[in-house]
């Protein structure tokens, strides 16, 4: 047929497509497995499941202190994402809008927590907090998480500020706006996509962090990933899979709407 030749891919394109699909499968398979296992009727994690049930979802409450830990995780994530975003606004303004010497070095420093192993950050933080005598407090946990998530809002805010033309701010100035009015009416609205995506990513990174939190918690101070992991080490049933599936569903819904409304993923990748 004449038509089919248009759709016929070259050998090279076929290989690229195959790699693309394999990557998607590779990334998505663990998620899919978790969801399937969570509906497994059996007491042990097995695949494929022999019978289906939703009992494990009812069992979530049996995870030790899970409600309390999830609340702390949510509060820490909210607070660290807020502080990191506010800090990100200031840092990105300085990095994009001023003639700062060694901009590249400063940017690299701000985003360095991404490149350092989290365990190393955790050990460094706890030694630091022990030295200060503030270890294992809510505040040291919060500060540790701010260090962890800081890079995300800085990156997205720098991207949205770079995309926004400086002449907009100058136009507003010439129309009679003070520096503060320019910031509130022009600069901040222009930063909005980066602001929202940076905040959401910072929140999510903090919310499910284990390797840093493990060094910073003790006794009554605990977080959701830590209690979940504790449960896994002592039990073999699929309750954590049920919890994880619930978590995946909620996060997916948030990201789906945030992407539709503010195109957050495009900004995070930028």
């Amino acid at each position, binding site marked *: 047929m004449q038509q089919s030749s248009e759709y016929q891919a070259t050998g090279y394109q076929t290989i690229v497509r195959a790699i693309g699909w394999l990557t998607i499968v590779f990334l998505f398979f663990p998620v899919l497995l978790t969801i399937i296992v969570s509906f497994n009727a059996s007491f042990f994690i097995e695949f494929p499941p022999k019978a289906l049930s939703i009992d494990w979802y009812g069992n979530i409450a049996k995870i030790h202190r899970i409600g309390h830990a999830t609340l702390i995780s949510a509060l820490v994530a909210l607070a660290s994402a807020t502080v990191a975003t506010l800090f990100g606004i200031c840092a990105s303004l300085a990095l994009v809008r001023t003639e700062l010497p060694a901009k590249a070095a400063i940017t690299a420093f701000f985003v360095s927590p991404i490149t350092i192993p989290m365990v190393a950050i955790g050990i460094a933080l706890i030694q630091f907090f022990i030295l200060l005598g503030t270890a294992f407090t809510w505040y040291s946990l919060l500060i540790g998480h701010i260090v962890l998530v800081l890079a995300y809002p800085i990156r997205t805010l720098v991207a949205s500020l770079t995309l926004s*033309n400086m*002449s*907009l701010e*100058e*136009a*507003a*100035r*010439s*129309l*009679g*706006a*003070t520096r503060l*009015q320019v910031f509130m*009416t*022009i600069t901040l*609205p*222009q930063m909005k996509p980066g602001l929202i995506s940076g905040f959401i990513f910072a929140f999510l990174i903090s919310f499910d962090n284990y390797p840093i939190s493990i060094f910073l918690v003790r006794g009554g101070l605990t977080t959701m990933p830590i209690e979940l992991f504790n449960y896994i080490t002592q039990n073999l049933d699929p309750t954590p899979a049920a919890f994880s599936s619930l978590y995946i569903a909620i996060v997916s819904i948030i990201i789906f709407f945030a992407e539709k409304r503010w195109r957050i993923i495009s900004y995070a990748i930028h």
Partner: protein
Amino acid sequence: MPGLELEGVNVWLGAQHVLKNIDLSVAEGECVALLGPSGCGKTTTLRTIAGFIVPQEGCVSIAGKSTKDLPPNKRNVGLVFQDYALFPHMTVSENVGYGLRMRKIDGKARAQQVEQALAMVQLLHMKDRMPSQLSGGQRQRIALARALVIQPDILLLDEPLGALDRKLRDQMQVELKQLQKKLGITTIIVTHDQEEALSLADRVAVMFDGQIAEIGKPVNLYETPSSLKVMEFLGSSNILSMVVNSREARGAILSGYQHYSIQVEHCAFSVGDRITAAIRPEHIGILPISELTSDTLEASTVECVYKGGLVEVHCRLSDGTPIKAQSDANCVQRLNLMQQGLKIALRLNSSRLQLFSNSPNELTHDRT
């Protein structure tokens, strides 16, 4: 009282001396174009007037008031950017009303003034659109309405028509000129487009290397520029090196190309001086070689460039000097100028010949 005055303005950006002693006085309601190649300091001048750059030396006065220590938001200046700088998150009305909002003009009064400004640029029906939904020409007009609605003391336009296609540019050029005259607002236009400068402005300031080389009415600047550099920058010109042969009451006879000599009415040079004579292509007549006399130059054709209506005839003198003349399709056909290497005679219009002294270097070079 001048609408705008710059006195001894010097600006250094880092170690670079960007504006060197700029003096400029613009009458109220006058339109002056700053014209020059990129990097000549014309945009820096505009940004200094707007207040985004504070000059290290000199002062800027707008409508008779010194702008010393006055930030951009206190200068009452209407600014139109090359990229229009419309606020992408606001509607057309909100864009135009922004300056009024900052002036605490609210409610009905603001809505009324915004509508008036939009009606002035014939875009009232677009008031609820977002800037991204407008064409280039429409954005340009909204930017203009936004700058004018605050009733500025002075209007600053940075390459206002640079981003538009040719046809739209011609149309906007006429509209802009009419609007500027109707409102009688003091206007500064920054442009690298000569046609834009010559057609829009009452006076044009040609800038080179951070200085104003010459300022004058477009016709004077084009026809009788004070320096060879300005002559070469504006339009196209032919450069001939000549010698003053003999002097008369005020004029002189010049020569330099074989038997050719030309009598000019005004000449400030003495006998024996080597000078540079410049003439525009439209002031050179093309004759058949049979009419070659001592007051015409012998040349041979190189190429004809068709420019629609006019034809630019590229020639070469016998010593190899390139020379351009302007002709029309009729003449090209009659004399068969399309043929390469055809011998022709060129008659320079002596009253349009501009004489300049050679630079000192060339002078010493000639004497050795």
